[in-house]
């Protein structure tokens, strides 16, 4: 029963596996790494404060394990995000926009243009420095699961937004 849609084989509908996905801007890796580094620094600093002021003497040996643990954890994050970065790709087609990402948890999302409610472009402080932006495409219903392409060039984001806007109105 694999052929579920016998009637439709004559109509060639676009195949998501066959389209060319475009990688997001390479500069966005810097933003990701900067973000992780900030968290890392915050964690280490708070750990330092806690261990120097609140920990009793007999537990002093214990703190090195904590430092090591956090460093390893963040090292793992760096590696995962750096490898996973290559997998962040998007594609804009005639009638829909798609985004895929993830190495451990892969996912692909597609939003048809005729279901788009509105589109947003926003920029964080780091992204602004690298002239990057993220593009969010909202549909009806629960907006938390809508499509968001982070880390594309601002001018690309504007172009895509305009493209989709004309498609919706037309």
């Amino acid at each position: 029963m694999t052929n579920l849609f016998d009637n439709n084989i004559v109509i060639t509908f676009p195949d998501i596996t066959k389209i060319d996905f475009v990688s997001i801007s390479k500069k966005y890796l810097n933003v990701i790494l900067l973000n992780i580094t900030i968290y890392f620094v915050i964690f280490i600093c708070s750990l330092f404060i806690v261990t120097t002021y609140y920990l009793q003497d007999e537990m002093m040996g214990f703190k090195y394990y904590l430092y090591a643990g956090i460093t390893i954890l963040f090292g793992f994050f760096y590696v995962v995000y750096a490898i996973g970065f290559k997998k962040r790709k998007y594609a804009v087609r005639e009638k829909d926009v798609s985004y895929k990402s993830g190495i451990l948890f892969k996912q692909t999302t597609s939003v048809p243009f005729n279901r788009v409610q509105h589109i947003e472009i926003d920029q964080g402080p780091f992204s602004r420095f690298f002239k990057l932006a993220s593009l969010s495409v909202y549909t009806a219903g629960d907006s938390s699961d809508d499509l968001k392409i982070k880390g594309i060039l601002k001018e690309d984001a504007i172009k895509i937004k305009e493209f989709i806007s004309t498609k919706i109105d037309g």
Partner: protein
Amino acid sequence: MGNTADFSQFRKQSKKGILVIYANLLYKALKTSWLVLLLVAQRFSKIQENHFTYIYLGIAVLLVFFLIRAFLIYKNFQFKIAKEHFVLKQGILKKSNTSIPFDRIQNINFKQNIIQQIINVHEVNVETAGSTKAEISIKALSFKDAKALKNAVTISQKKENKVEEIISEKPFLKINFPALLKVSLTENHFHSLLLLFAVLITFFQQITDLFDGLGKKEVLDNYISENTSALQSSVILIVGLLILLTVIAVLSSVVRVVFKHFNLTVYIKNNALEIYQGLTTKKTVILKKNKIQHITISTNPIKKILGISFITFKQAISGKVKKKQLDKIIRIVGCKANQVNQIKELLDFSAQIDAIPFQKSNIYLKYRNYIRSLLFFVPLNILFYFGMEDYNAFWVNAIIIPVYIIVTHFFYKKRVFKCTEDIMVIGSGILETHQTYLPFYKVQNIKLKQTIFQERKGVADLVFQTASGKLKLPCISIEKAMHIYNYTLFKVESSTKSWM
């Protein structure tokens, strides 16, 4: 229909509305302060005689204050209809002015709680599809006015549509009391019990919060531990408790179903379902065909023998308003097979869909459940090993592991799916059997998810996002998933029908 003229000027609701608003304010006040009142009442004997006057005076002032507030709310709540817009002014100090174009109005529903029933007024709720504006509730209108308001809005909406069809007065579905009892007795009592527990837990939390605040937590803790140790010592008590729980579960199902669905009557009119139900709070809901996003037809083994099932309709919800979501899930109970078929027909679900056999999910779904269960069972047993003095606790495994295996078996067995040209049917359930019918063109966006383990096994999860929530199709083979993914996109992109 000269009634439209009534709404051209700003007007207030029925004067009886003051009473409804007043009762509502008092109810809210009581709900937030019942615990404090209880504590005060407990110490009643300790209060000195001469303080009573102050207390009574305080209560009287509060009651008058609420009455004035209710009057002001009533006085400032004005609405009218102008230029295809529903306009509302409200607010005592913070005035607000809302205007809703008719085409954004999703539904106009009537509701009657017990006070509104006594004084014979109807609450009119205006549901909108927009996500930014709050929904409007007019607390008290006479039936005539309510009907006129609704007509004023719906008729001008209909101008662009077809002429009204002839209304059939014979109800499509009517559930009398014995039939409703039958429905309630065959409910999923586990579910009822869980709901009851959820309510009790919130009560308990409220109580502990209060005792915490008063520094009396120890008293409560002692009270509880005394009672639990007594409980442990007596097996008879435990058995008794189990029987009691069963009785409570059944009773709570009966009460829940009877209160909610009392005198359930459904009419089919102009491509919409009109649903009337409720005992203390009577509700009238009009479900328009194109507002329904997907429906779920559910049954359980006992209901199946009796040949009844219940249908859950999901309407489009606005994104951020989480609380309102429950209101938009509408359920009708006690449907016979031919009524189910009629509803499918109404929603244009082709009859051929039932002839197609279901396809199973990939067996990986079952394995994944077992693997995930280890996350629960391993720590539990480690806890038993280190935490308990004797090893009797391990016998718990003898009960929960077989139960878990059976549950997983049914979970996997009922996770099935099939697609026709226009509709996707997804089966789920453990004790109950649910079948969700989703027309492809109602999909908002689609997601394909795959973990690294799933990738190795060649399976993936599909998530359909609709305007009334997500629908998941877990662990199907990647080829089928891709096929459905592409087909859904094709269907949505080529569809000319509006999803709402």
